[in-house]
């Protein structure tokens, strides 16, 4: 359902308003609000999942809602609701010497960066807000938005930990964009299109048509992309920008309440985006693993979301099992390992396509 299609539908449904500017605004606003809901629900679910997964990894039970007084529901299901309420009701602190305008603006810049990337994610054959010709390139391009927000947040807080965190994360995201982009180039070489739907159409025909299984090189490309994706979302083992033991909280040290929760929302939205790109590029997108079955619109949403959730689970798994890397190790992995592997992969996929394609 693109904005254009929605605009036409609105024009037909409300003929007395047809051609009016209100309908344009509506056609833009409705998908935006829907996406905001998706991002918010995504954060709610993932925060709960993160608590539970981390607990099980560490042989704990996690939030259970036991005891008297405030009750977090069965199995602690209401824990994230309680978290959200706490964040909303928290005092909003802005340091006196912080750069007020930029301090207020930074979380929104980061959030916008995550938000505008989500509009290109295809949840089904027709369930996509904007199926652009340059879909996958668009997502890579707008992810640079978040970097500016991170640096601004780190700088405007007027705090050395924040500045260090902002610098580190900017350096990290810019570096890891390169192996991520290069491994997606192998996908583009196979599919010969940049459109998200085009890439998914190429992979129709069940489990073994998915790009991840189409050649050994594309499997390696998937691994490289996934490692780079974890680094791009600033999660452990690549979370030196917010390393608690060194930098207090990194770029968001000085943030509290709702402003802080915007960082949180965008972190989980970014996870959704990078996993969505991985699913689209390598795991067949919304296609069902069994050709010809379970491929209605409802099922396509189910497949897309469950594949994303699986990758998110792997990300959490990695987070709670590996220790954090040092800065120099982080850069070593990117420039000395991932980048040469990704370059070699491009060559390999080229040869593979030449011989078997």
């Amino acid at each position, binding site marked *: 359902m693109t904005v*254009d299609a929605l*605009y036409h539908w609105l024009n037909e449904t409300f003929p007395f308003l047809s051609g009016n*500017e209100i309908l*344009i605004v509506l*056609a833009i606003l409705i998908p935006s609000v829907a996406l905001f809901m998706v991002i918010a629900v995504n954060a709610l679910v993932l925060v709960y999942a993160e608590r539970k997964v981390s607990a099980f990894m560490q042989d704990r039970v996690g939030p259970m809602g036991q005891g008297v007084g405030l009750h977090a529901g069965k199995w602690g299901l209401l824990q994230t609701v309680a978290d959200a309420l706490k964040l909303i009701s928290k005092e909003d602190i802005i340091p006196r*010497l912080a*750069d007020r*305008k*930029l301090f207020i*603006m930074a979380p929104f*810049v980061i959030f916008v960066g995550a938000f505008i990337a989500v509009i290109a994610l295809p949840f089904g054959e027709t369930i996509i807000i904007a199926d*652009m*010709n*340059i879909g996958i*390139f*668009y997502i*890579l*391009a*707008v*992810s*640079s*938005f978040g*970097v*500016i927000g991170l*640096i*601004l947040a780190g*700088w405007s807080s*007027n705090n*050395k930990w924040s*500045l260090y965190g*902002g*610098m580190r994360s*900017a350096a990290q995201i*810019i570096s890891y*964009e390169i192996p991520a982009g290069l491994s997606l180039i192998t996908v583009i070489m196979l599919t*010969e299109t*940049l459109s998200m739907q085009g890439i998914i159409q190429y992979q129709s025909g069940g489990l073994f048509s998915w790009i991840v299984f189409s050649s050994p090189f594309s499997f390696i490309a998937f691994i490289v992309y996934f490692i780079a994706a974890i680094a791009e979302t600033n999660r452990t083992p690549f979370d030196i920008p917010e390393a608690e033991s060194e930098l207090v909280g990194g770029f968001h040290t000085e943030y509290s309440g709702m402003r802080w929760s915007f960082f949180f929302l965008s972190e989980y939205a970014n996870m959704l985006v990078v996993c969505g790109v991985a699913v689209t590029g390598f795991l067949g997108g919304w296609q069902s693993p069994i050709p010809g079955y379970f491929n209605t619109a409802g099922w396509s949403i189910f497949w897309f979301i469950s594949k994303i959730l699986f990758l998110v689970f792997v990300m959490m798994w990695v987070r709670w099992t590996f220790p954090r890397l040092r800065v120099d190790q982080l850069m070593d992995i990117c420039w000395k390992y991932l980048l040469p592997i990704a370059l070699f992969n491009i060559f390999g996929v080229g040869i593979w396509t030449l011989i078997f394609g």
Partner: protein
Amino acid sequence: MSEFAFWMVAALTIISAGLVVFSGQLIYSAVALLFTLLGVAGLYVFLWADFMAGVQVMVYIGGILVLIVFGIMLTHKIVSVKISQTNVQRRIGGFAAGLFLVILISAMGSASWFMEVTPEPVETVRTIGILLMTKYLLPFEAASLLLLGALIGAAMLSRKEN
């Protein structure tokens, strides 16, 4: 539909470009530049140049603007000092800009514009790719050599001397 969006994007570009020039502090200029570059990318979209818009965002916002912001922050004492951005020679500059505006407006008014509604191109990226690999292969390779030279130069400059 697209006319409304065009004016929004154009307004975003012009207003933020004004902020780049007139804001007193360098860091605000850099932030305003973010929106200017984004607006220019939007204008590319209206010219059916979607790939160019993506490149604009990736190179100018993801690369150059990040470098500018990095530079401002690293040369900036965290507390107290404000790097202010001043416009010297306001009168001469304003006069030159005004004269240029008059020339532009008169040129736009007198020119006989060739108007045509171009249909949306089906494939932009594919066309660009084919052209780069056939007609413009030599400039493309020359640019890649230039970039390689710049890359090696940057590595040379930043390495430790011992």
